[in-house]
């Protein structure tokens, strides 16, 4: 019983530590963030004009020399992306990373664009492969381990 209490205590301490880490990570986010977040752009765009920004967002439209992106975060903000590095392998619904300078006309002069998903279907590929990955890990784990109610925890499956 003492062992179970110790295990529970350690688990709770780790869990509280993890939540504390999430709080600290959130509090120090500005140290790591290159430029304003979508939330900041939504609320105070003009204050950040001229700064470099890294945005992650869904492509709303693409034409020859401009792309419109909805940057995702706690807020969604729509910006035009210009520059001679505009990719030709992305369609509306794709997902991109954009790094560049914020301009006054709600646009970003992109220095670098990374196409994460060329098409919306790429997201389904990742989702499908991830579901399979979880199932593979769970099946292989349960082949070797079983949940013991008497000993409260995972124990080796002797017939595995």
């Amino acid at each position, binding site marked *: 019983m003492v062992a179970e209490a110790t295990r529970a205590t350690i688990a709770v301490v780790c869990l509280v530590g*993890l939540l504390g880490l*999430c*709080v600290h*990570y*959130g509090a120090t986010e500005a140290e*790591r963030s290159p430029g304003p977040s979508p939330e900041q752009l939504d609320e105070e765009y003009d204050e950040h004009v001229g700064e470099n920004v890294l945005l992650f967002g869904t492509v709303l439209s693409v034409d020859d020399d401009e792309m419109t992106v909805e940057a995702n975060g706690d807020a969604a903000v729509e910006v035009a992306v210009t520059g001679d590095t505009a990719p030709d392998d992305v369609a509306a619904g794709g997902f991109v990373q954009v790094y560049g300078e914020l301009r006054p006309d709600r646009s970003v002069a992109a220095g*670098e664009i990374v196409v994460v998903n060329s098409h919306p279907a790429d997201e389904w590929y990742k989702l499908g492969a991830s579901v399979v*990955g979880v199932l593979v890990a769970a099946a292989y*784990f349960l082949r070797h381990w079983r949940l013991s109610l008497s*000993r409260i925890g995972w124990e080796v499956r002797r017939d595995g």
Partner: protein
Amino acid sequence: MAELLSHVLIAFVVLTVASWRLEWLTKRWVAVGMVGAIFPDLEQIGTLVSDAAVRELLGVPFNWAAIHTLGGVVLLSGVAAMTFSDERRRAFAVLVAGALTHLVTDGAKMYAGGYASAWLYPVVRSRPPTPNLYVSSDVRVLSLVLAATILVVWVDRSDIATADPPD
């Protein structure tokens, strides 16, 4: 993140190769490491309960992305290791190892601007540079990992892996 199938199989490959030299690292521990490889992506809990919602609830800054870091996976592995009836230290070590294969793989992902996510946090609080090797939807990643998995399974089942080196 790359998709989770690649991450789980990378953990399998790395830990199986390690098992050729570490006698205690049996298949059941490799299986534990594969579960650990999923841990960094538990940050996706943020799609169910947003950072903003937690911030509002607690009244303090908050970001689930801390789970996808070295500190996050160590603490998460600590929680998970306590669910094992025995050999919890070994479970902890293997869970962390599996999670590390995930973080290292993601550390090589492409980022506009050339810096990866802060995966070494809190040991290194800044974002380390990335070699920009791939994007998460690149099917070549999974193809390469599947090929490596088949090779490792084949070697593991033969005598090559555990044969003593020649004198």
